[in-house]
């Protein structure tokens, strides 16, 4: 059976009152040209002509060894199996879980049952969040955290009931937990169908293509600023700050826009993981893929920067310039104001929190070392790792290797050739008790 003939399935999670029923009603009544079969785990009959609505009671099946990755949803195996006998009746299946449901067994059902695997594809997990009430639960509810962690799309609903400042902070909090998910703000669960259907969230061909931003790592820098600079010599002036040195890099951007700055972020992350060059007295900083360490033994310190041609440049600094009262100045000594700036907040979450750990590193991996590392990681921490995705570069392999997983279940394969794109590795883990340092160190030890 080919991939394209598999029926896509969307899993809808969210607490009672988050707006799931409103959204389901909308999906069933809206004229979007799709026939949708709905499996409902919660009350509220919504059946509409043409659509199939089936009630179900959650049945968790632990397989023999009690390992969490072998936990599946028996009710879904049964109902989906039956639905597949009537597959000419619908184009899409939507599973509504109860407010307290753990999305893990739901997702795992799609990896563990062969009938389901061959006939259905898990398209994505959509999590609805009541923007007003979620803050009461987010700290102490494992279910809320897990539903956020598993999501491909998060609908921050009831946005009309909270201030925009609260929304911003909530969105930042959610983003720190799951930086791979797309967040949409909604009112009355109004959202375009194409934002929640056909996401390809578990599809290796698409998951890593749709949103290149998803692999946001922990940034090794805290600040960037974009400047329009003429050819010439500039200086970076810094005063005493919390560290005796600061790392900085200068990149040329393609346009004087926010997008232009964003495009330099990935090369900057890669650059920051390379060896830094300690700047000697009198040496010039140049724009390019070189990381400089700026010693600050004596302050104020002045570092000369040469700009070879007119253009748009982005400065990335390890710490926020304000901490060092730092500024970029032109040859006449006047301070330059960047056109755009962005702060990159390092994650300061507690260990028991759900977080995303992104790793972006240039170079090739040793296949054997990586396999051993990942196997051990999943054996020890698979319970806490909700989802993972990545694109890897293995030594001797001309193609990219893409993978994704849920807890201990792992699905990966070679993808298209690297071509002239620089070979690098980007992966993300979303989970609980993730140790960023250990993950980074463990992964880096697998590099050739």
């Amino acid at each position, binding site marked *: 059976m080919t991939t394209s003939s598999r029926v896509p399935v969307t899993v809808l999670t969210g607490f009672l009152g988050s707006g799931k029923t409103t959204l389901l009603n909308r999906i069933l009544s809206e004229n979007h040209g799709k026939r949708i079969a709905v499996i409902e785990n919660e009350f509220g009959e919504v059946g509409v002509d043409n659509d199939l609505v089936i*009630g179900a009671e959650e*049945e968790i099946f632990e397989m023999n060894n009690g390992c969490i990755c072998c936990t599946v949803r*028996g009710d879904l195996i049964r109902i989906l199996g039956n639905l597949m006998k009537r597959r000419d009746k619908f184009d899409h299946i939507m599973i509504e879980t109860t407010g307290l449901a753990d999305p893990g067994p739901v997702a795992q059902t799609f990896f563990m049952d062969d009938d389901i695997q061959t006939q259905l594809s898990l398209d994505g997990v959509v999590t609805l969040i009541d923007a007003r009430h979620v803050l009461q639960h987010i700290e102490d509810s494992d279910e809320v955290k897990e539903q956020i962690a598993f999501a491909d799309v998060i609908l921050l609903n009831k946005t009309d009931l909270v201030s925009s400042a609260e929304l911003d902070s909530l969105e930042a909090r959610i983003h720190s937990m799951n930086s791979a998910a797309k967040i949409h703000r909604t009112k009355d669960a109004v959202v375009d169908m194409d934002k929640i259907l056909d996401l390809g969230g578990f599809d290796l061909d698409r998951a890593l293509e749709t949103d290149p931003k998803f692999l946001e790592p922990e940034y090794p820098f805290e600040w960037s600023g974009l400047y329009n600079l003429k050819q010439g010599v500039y200086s970076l002036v810094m005063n005493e700050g919390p560290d005796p040195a600061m790392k900085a890099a200068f990149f040329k951007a393609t346009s004087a826009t926010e997008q232009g700055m964003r495009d330099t972020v990935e090369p900057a992350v890669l650059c920051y993981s390379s060896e830094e060059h300690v700047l000697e007295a009198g040496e010039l900083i140049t724009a390019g893929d070189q990381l400089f360490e700026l010693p600050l033994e004596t302050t104020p310190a002045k570092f000369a920067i040469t700009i070879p041609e007119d253009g748009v440049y982005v400065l990335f600094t390890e710490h926020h310039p304000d901490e060092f009262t730092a500024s970029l100045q032109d040859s006449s000594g006047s301070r330059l104001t960047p056109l755009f700036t962005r702060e990159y907040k390092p994650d300061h979450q507690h260990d028991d929190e759900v977080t995303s750990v992104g790793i972006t590193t240039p170079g090739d991996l040793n296949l054997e070392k990586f396999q051993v590392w990942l196997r051990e990681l999943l054996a020890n921490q698979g319970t806490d790792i909700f989802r993972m995705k990545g694109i890897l570069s293995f030594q001797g392999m001309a193609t990219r290797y893409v993978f994704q997983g849920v807890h201990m279940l792992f699905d990966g394969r070679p993808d298209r050739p690297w071509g002239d794109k620089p070979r690098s590795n980007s992966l993300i883990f979303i989970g609980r008790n993730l140790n960023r340092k250990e993950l980074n160190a463990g992964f880096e030890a697998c590099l050739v």
Partner: protein
Amino acid sequence: MFGLKAGQRDGRELRELWQVDIEDYVNDLAWSGDRRFLAAISVSGQVWVYSHDDRELHRLGEHIGGGSSISWRPGTTELASIGHDGTVKLWDAAIQRLTGELDSGATWGTKVAWRPQGTSLATAAGKSLRLFTTDGEIAYESSDHESTIADIGWNPDGSAVAVAAYFGVTLHIPGRPVRRLEWKGSSLALAWSPTAKYLVTGEQDSSVHVWFMKTGRDSQMTGFATKVLELSWHRSGNYLATGGSDSIILWNCSGAGPEGREPKTLEGHPTRLTQLQFQHRGDDIASSDADGMVLLWTPLTHITPYFMRAFESPVTRLAWSSDDQRLTVGERNGTITTLGFRK
């Protein structure tokens, strides 16, 4: 295609007797004991009877929401059916009419099974097992199951009903406490050996579980490619055929049982098996797969099939008539074909 050639077996030859189309996934098929009627239920809930006498297909009625299982009451023309509407329907094929309706106790009906003696009807719906008298009274009920019931089956002497669900099997004898054969797994299908020496279950975790009924000892057979739904006993009770892959595995269960004995592997299907049915009185086994291939074998003597026929869509059901002279094949696309041995 693959390089399989069906061999000859002492004049066994099949030809097509008739073919009808119910235009919907064939979910269950059964011949009446007197071989006059073939009943079928489709996945959307239509109940059909084909009369072998007048060669006509009759639609009896439907279970709104879906159909699951049918069972003939031994020695009669009465048919019971169950589906996803919370009812058990009773039909008389001779007059093509609904004769009764029972409450199955839950919407999701899984299976109906008449007692071999024809004196009681077992029904499984949701987590509820019910035994009805011939008057339609509930004689026994149990909802004490860990999950929605996956399968039920009367033991050969009709004294007990076995229920397969998550956490293994339970045995129900009216008036007695439930006997539990616990196994931490999800049992999907069950089959009593004809001598009641064994009860076997096909499991979600790609294994087959064997219960030795006298001692209560159990044993696990693993190595299947997929979950195991296909189980069929040879009439002697000495051989068990299992699916769960492209190959039929034949286990020798005589004497001390299958443990430590190398099973026989019958290869020929190009893809995953969907049905396995030993004859009632003979030694032949019919098998089908998801590509629509039906093969017939004499597995005790040969490991190659003697008959093959490719059908248009995946074969979903196989049913032998009580005299083993007819084999009926139900397909995903709704075609029902009956083959007969040339006399």
